[in-house]
């Protein structure tokens, strides 16, 4: 276990150093612009999996948390001109509190009722933001990026690195949960909540932890979005496409292990970036939907399930 932990942190450090080196070495802006989106989806899918994969509560409200992150960042920037790191921290804080609220919903709602409630939350928050003039209302808001600080030479490259750091944080959190008593407890309540409660698993506490962390990470992933696009409006910030993407990426990658959502997000994220450039953005949602349906029907354990089966078969020969 300890050896594995060492390797994990070594890989994480190598990943961050590699990303940082890229921002220094590559002049072209475009790879960072595209790479940012893929990193963002790794964070979202990993965060979704903490609640959806480990605890079995299907959250359709990824876009609610994402949008809250976007708008908290805008508020902090517009009102107090705070730097990006503080914006992200603020967004994570509010996302975590919102997550706690969603966690209390799980007391009375399970299965599809919980999922529908999270969509409801998305639309309600979106409607409030739409009617709030300070952050631009329905028309949206234009933002001017502040000057970038050294060592980064452009704002997009800095955001890219910030998002890479969020990836490391999200994956580390997911990995910690999976390997600790929290993960085992969540797994128990996913299989049978009543039985888990009866044998002394503190189900509410575990669900609250999972919802809070998941929500905080989703909002943190959304916070840099406003600066990335230099524009935000409620319709795009709260778009249900974020919900379906996070869910699809986690399910396609495999929900049982923290590596699953990463694989799913990379596979779908790269495909989407290629398709958006070559065909159209509608087609990439179509591919996402079709792959989601194919995987839930044909490969219930996702990519990691397929790989595991292949390995097992190979070992048998």
């Amino acid at each position, binding site marked *: 276990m300890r050896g594995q932990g060492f390797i994990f942190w070594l890989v994480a450090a190598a990943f961050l150093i590699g990303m940082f080196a890229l921002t220094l070495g590559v002049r072209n802006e475009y790879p960072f612009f595209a790479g940012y989106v893929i990193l963002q989806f790794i964070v979202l899918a990993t965060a979704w999996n903490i609640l959806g994969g480990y605890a079995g509560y299907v959250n359709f409200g990824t876009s609610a948390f994402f949008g809250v992150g976007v708008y908290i960042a805008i508020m902090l920037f517009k009102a107090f001109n705070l730097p990006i790191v503080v914006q992200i921290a603020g967004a994570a804080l509010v996302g975590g509190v919102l997550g706690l609220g969603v966690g209390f919903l799980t007391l009375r709602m399970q299965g599809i009722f919980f999922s*529908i409630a999270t*969509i409801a939350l998305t639309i309600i928050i979106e409607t409030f933001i739409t009617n709030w003039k300070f952050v631009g209302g329905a028309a949206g808001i234009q933002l001017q990026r502040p000057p970038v600080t050294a060592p980064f030479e452009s704002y997009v490259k800095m955001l890219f690195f910030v998002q890479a750091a969020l990836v490391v944080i999200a994956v580390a959190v997911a990995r910690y949960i999976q390997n600790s008593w929290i993960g085992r407890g969540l797994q128990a309540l996913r299989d049978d909540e009543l039985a888990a409660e009866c044998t002394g698993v503190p189900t509410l506490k575990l669900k609250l932890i999972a919802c809070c962390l998941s929500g905080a990470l989703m909002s943190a992933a959304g916070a840099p979005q406003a600066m990335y696009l230099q524009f935000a409006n409620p319709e795009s910030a709260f778009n249900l496409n974020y919900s379906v993407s996070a869910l699809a990426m986690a399910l396609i990658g495999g929900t049982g292990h923290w590596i699953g959502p990463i694989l799913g997000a990379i596979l779908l994220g790269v495909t989407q970036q290629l398709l958006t450039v070559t065909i159209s953005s509608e087609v990439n949602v179509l591919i996402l939907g079709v792959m*989601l349906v194919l995987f839930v029907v044909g490969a219930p354990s996702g990519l990691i399930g397929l790989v595991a089966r292949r390995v097992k078969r190979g070992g048998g020969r």
Partner: protein
Amino acid sequence: MFSLDLLRDAVVLGLLLGCFYAAVSIGLSVSFGLLDVPHVAHPAFLVLASYGVYVLNEYGIDPLLAGLMLTPVFFVIGLGTYWIYYETFEKRGQDQAVRGIAFFFGIAFIIEVLIILALGVDQRSVSAEYIGKSWRIWDMRIPMRLIVAFGVAILLIFLLTQYLSRTFTGWAIRAVAQDEGALRLMGANPFKIKRWAFGIATAVLGMAGALLIIVAPVEPTLDRAYIGRTFCVVVMAGLGSMSGTLAAAIILGVSESIVLTLFGASWAPAISFTLLLVVLAVRPQGLFGR
């Protein structure tokens, strides 16, 4: 600023609107309320039906007739959907619930994108004699399209309620909702009954889709708003209660119409979802639940 006249108008319009909401939700009341299928794609099928009606209307077919023509097509789609759902999720047991929900969510998105690819993101509407005219009672003007939708909706709900309470198949459907195991012991096949019921629930969408596009223009992503409306109605009604569906839909319609008059259209999308959340939190078994 706010007068009794305005309130009266809002209530009357809300009542008509409510019956229309009942018509678009009654299918879900069967598939989700009675059969426990997490049918998040119900509103997407509804919008698909509307686009079907739009395409047929382009050839000069009356929207209501077009809706009727689509009914058998949607019946078959319903049979197929339930068959896939049963084979891949229901048969394998409880731990498939997460994937079942994701499955229907994926289907909804696929339908949305296919409509966008085929017909674009623009709003579409149909033309017929009764669309655009209005009916005067005293000093009120009621749009004819709402009255047509109201009449057809009432007829639709009446027929479906009669079917479920008077016919042998209807009894079987309600029996399978109550106790599937007992039905199996009686020598009946629950899968066949549920597949048939799901087919009926989807077939109704042919007509409901026609009403949807008669009442207002449709766009491909309209299903997102109707997730709130249809699930709000079905949950508020108490799962599977047909008369409850009508009452709950009227409550929703009147509340929407009053809030719209008071605060403006930008608050409209939140109403159904707020009502839904309140019902789920306070009275999850619904107002008229079993």
